[in-house]
């Protein structure tokens, strides 16, 4: 089975916050940054990070959770709210800051909206895409390809 992943391109993000609001709407029906599972980190006016779960495998958070609340299922890291006691060990260990505390100590983390992420549907610039894992690379070779084509053109081929 081909694993689908969220592909993030920071350079394309213009911090319009649509993904954040769409995520919060899809999760809880209200527009509220604290309920969203995706965060745009802005420092001094620059988008430095889009913090969203990478669904790592093996995942650090699953490794560190002693309560059996985080598990990898079908290539997705799933949080079982009923087992979570908000000990926040997963927040401390996540290298992406993708798990956050919401109201009442409930933890929120990306569940990929069951295969049709709301953030991807609303992103106007293509900074966040949902695609098969093996095609992620293809979005990044453009720079090299363009340079080589330009070069080949200059020397008279092409």
């Amino acid at each position, binding site marked *: 089975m081909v694993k689908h992943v969220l592909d993030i391109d920071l350079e394309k993000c213009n911090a319009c916050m649509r993904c954040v609001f769409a995520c919060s709407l899809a999760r809880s029906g209200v527009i509220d940054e604290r309920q969203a599972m995706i965060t745009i980190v802005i420092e001094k006016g620059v988008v430095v990070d889009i913090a969203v779960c990478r669904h790592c495998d093996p995942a650090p958070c699953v490794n560190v959770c002693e309560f059996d609340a985080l598990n990898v299922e079908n290539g997705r890291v799933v949080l079982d709210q009923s087992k979570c006691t908000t000990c926040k060990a997963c927040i401390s260990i996540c*290298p992406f800051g993708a798990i956050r505390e919401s109201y009442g100590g409930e933890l929120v983390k990306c569940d990929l909206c069951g295969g049709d992420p709301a953030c991807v549907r609303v992103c106007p610039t293509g900074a966040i895409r949902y695609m098969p894992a093996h095609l992620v690379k293809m979005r990044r070779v453009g720079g090299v390809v363009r340079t080589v084509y330009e070069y*080949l053109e200059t020397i008279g081929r092409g």
Partner: protein
Amino acid sequence: MGWATSMAPRQVSAWEVIGMTHRYILAVDYEKCTGCHLCELACSIKHYGVVNPYLSRITIITKPEIQASTPIFCLQCNDALCARACPANAIYFDEKTGAWLIDYNKCIGCRECVYACPFGAISLTVKAEPIKCDLCGGDPECVKVCPHGAIFYGPEYEVIRKLKKGKSVGIVYGILEKGVEVPAGNRVKEAEEAVKTLYRIWEERKKLNI
């Protein structure tokens, strides 16, 4: 973006640390590449025993309209961005072969290296496991299989000589500029002339409006 120039600023390279004077490099003469994709197949057979271009660490992008192909491969940067970006410290420099390798015991599959690489040289398999060129432990299969001799592997000076023979002046110029070797005066002159010629051709081409 220069495909043959290293990351700036150039700090003490991994090679200088281990005292190697001549680094071994893999390079491609882009003019000779015909886009036959044999290297991709060889790479996937070597590493996985199956023929599947998606399991290859080298990828050929072909644009048939202008009959040009671009192999995308790992340049084994001196100061590798993938290793810097890795949150699990899983990418390390292998002194034996001169390749940056992924330690799969440490790798958490977060794709941070794929996002960090400016060349798109790290691929993901269908299971979202990152794979990158490991130089086949010092004996690259793609070099052996290439029917047109477009991929070279060897000590840096030798590769540069070969690239020059292939009249890839631009690429050679790019590598020399990097400061590995100070080019002699006449070489600079040669290169400058070559660039001038390139520009002339380019100007003519532009008039033709291809």
